């Protein structure tokens, strides 16, 4: 719950609402990726995340 409140505050501060549908899409469909992928393999050379 606290995550949602904080994310709401973040969205209100940054006002980048166009990112919201992408995030919702990712959370729903990305859930499958998370469930199906055993471990998160760190990228080999360099990551920006």
């Amino acid at each position, binding site marked *: 719950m606290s995550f949602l409140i904080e994310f709401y505050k973040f969205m209100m501060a940054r006002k980048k609402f166009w990112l919201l549908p992408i995030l919702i899409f990712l959370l729903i469909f990305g859930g499958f990726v998370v469930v199906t992928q055993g471990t998160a393999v760190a990228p080999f050379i360099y990551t*920006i995340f």
Partner: protein
Amino acid sequence: MSYILGISAFYHDSAAAIIHNGNIIAAAQEERFSRKKHDSGFPKNAVNFVLDFAKISLSEVDHIVFYEKPFLKFERLLETYVAFAPKGFASFSKAMPIWLREKLFQKKMIMDYLKDHDKNFKDENKILFSEHHLSHAASAFYPSPFEKAVILTADGVGEWATTTVAIGDKNKLEIKKELHFPHSLGLLYSAFTYYTGFKVNSGEYKLMGLAPYGKPKYIEQILNNLIDLKEDGTFMLDQQYFNYSTGLTMTNHHFDKLFGQPPRKPDTERITQFHMDIASSIQKVTEKIMLMLAKSLSEEYNMPNLCLAGGVALNCVANGKILKEKIFENIWVQPAAGDAGGSLGAALAYWHIDLNKDRFNSTKDSMQGSYLGSHFSDDEIKTTLNEIGAEFTEMSEDEIIEKTANEISNEKAIGWFQGRMEFGPRALGNRSILGDPRSDKMQKNLNLKVKFRESFRPFAPSVLKEEVSDWFELSADSPYMLFVADIKKEKTQEMSDDEKKLFGIDLLNIKRSEIPAVTHVDYSARIQTVYKETNNKYYKLIKKFKEITNCPVLINTSFNIRGEPIVNTPKDAFNCFMGTELDILVIGNCYLEKNKQNINLKKDYKNKFELD
């Protein structure tokens, strides 16, 4: 009474720092405890250490500040992927599971880790988040000896910012302007680190060390193609040559075509003159950008003091150039300028900015020589040495200084383990390997037989503060080994005509000065000035060495081998001593000679650590 715990983690160089009423109490990198170089995990050992050192439990900490803002970083990621779509799907599909499962919920993750430290810790509201570059700026300004200063931070990338300018005034700190991802000086340098076959986020030092062996032949190619550099030092990178925004490498085939070769494969390809010329070129471009930024900031803000932090501030050659040009009267660089220092900056930023607390003494460097890490008592050292079966002799401080100084002058390689461990990437005389800088063979021997690293890599000198200007073209303080300056002309030796014809690694064999082991091929040195106020024992050792040899300079390199984090405990030090060709180990006032140790305690050490 207010304790603030700062944490940096989950990217590289995790660390923890604790401050009490604004005073820095302790700070350490996780890698020193986990023995995993650039450890990026939650710094549980470092947190344990700083809490133990402060003699408090986690529940007694008032605020816990993480060094960057995960939501903002996630926003940058999403926007970048959208901007480049459909390119970058491979990177996107690897990044999103990590973010959706863990990183987006970092507050909960941190909370869970903290509960492991202290079951009674329940207050989630104590966990706060600072901005990445604000943390860097705070780490550079608040411990500096300046009441007012311009603060320049530059690194790969934080949330959005890659370079920031801030103004610090007493306890106020305000970010004035920023350059944003993907336009990054740190990432430009890392792209060349990758291209020359070194590891990104750790091999940048090697690239800088390699640069003096080459000629800057490719400056025009870099400036005309890769970067749009403005007069004030701000810049944009042409993304068609880079792959870091969307791919899993730093550069792409356009970059290879521009310079005529693919990236060097470190396992199978040797370093050639081409790589040295590339290193020289990007180093010169970096210096040019830093100088232009410094000049424009000096003109715009007309302030005498400059503070630096962020990974680019570890480029001590560029720092030395800014100092030499006298653009600012005084420059102070945070010794833990990389992400580890963000832990300290996050804590300081919260204390001074959010809680609006004054600085105690804003005219004195409050980093305490950067000796902020773990410490072992004489009894703890003796107990450890006895447990592991080491043969040692306990001496008085004066005896040990005299004996060690004598052995250094006899060209012995010494492991020197004293007092509190350094915070930041440099060993500053408490976890150091020491040697005689006058020796012709010391650089090669230490590199190949002790450190097991590439022979081209230079060693740094430690010099008594009051003697620095007799030996180097430097009169300013350089307590953290973050400025490079030339060896004084009268201490250098002219090259013969035959020697002048040599190039590349062959330059290494020429004796260039009275202190050849710390004189790089371009007659420069990365200098540490030593003070009795911050490290009296090390100061006395160098002074004694001067009495014997008339030379107030020692070789000082970190106490580790290639790929290993700097030693943290007496046991780490003993293992490294036995696994290398170090001749003598001094831990506190305990003196150990290699030829008196049980040969069965020798270990295969070289292969224990992954090469960096």
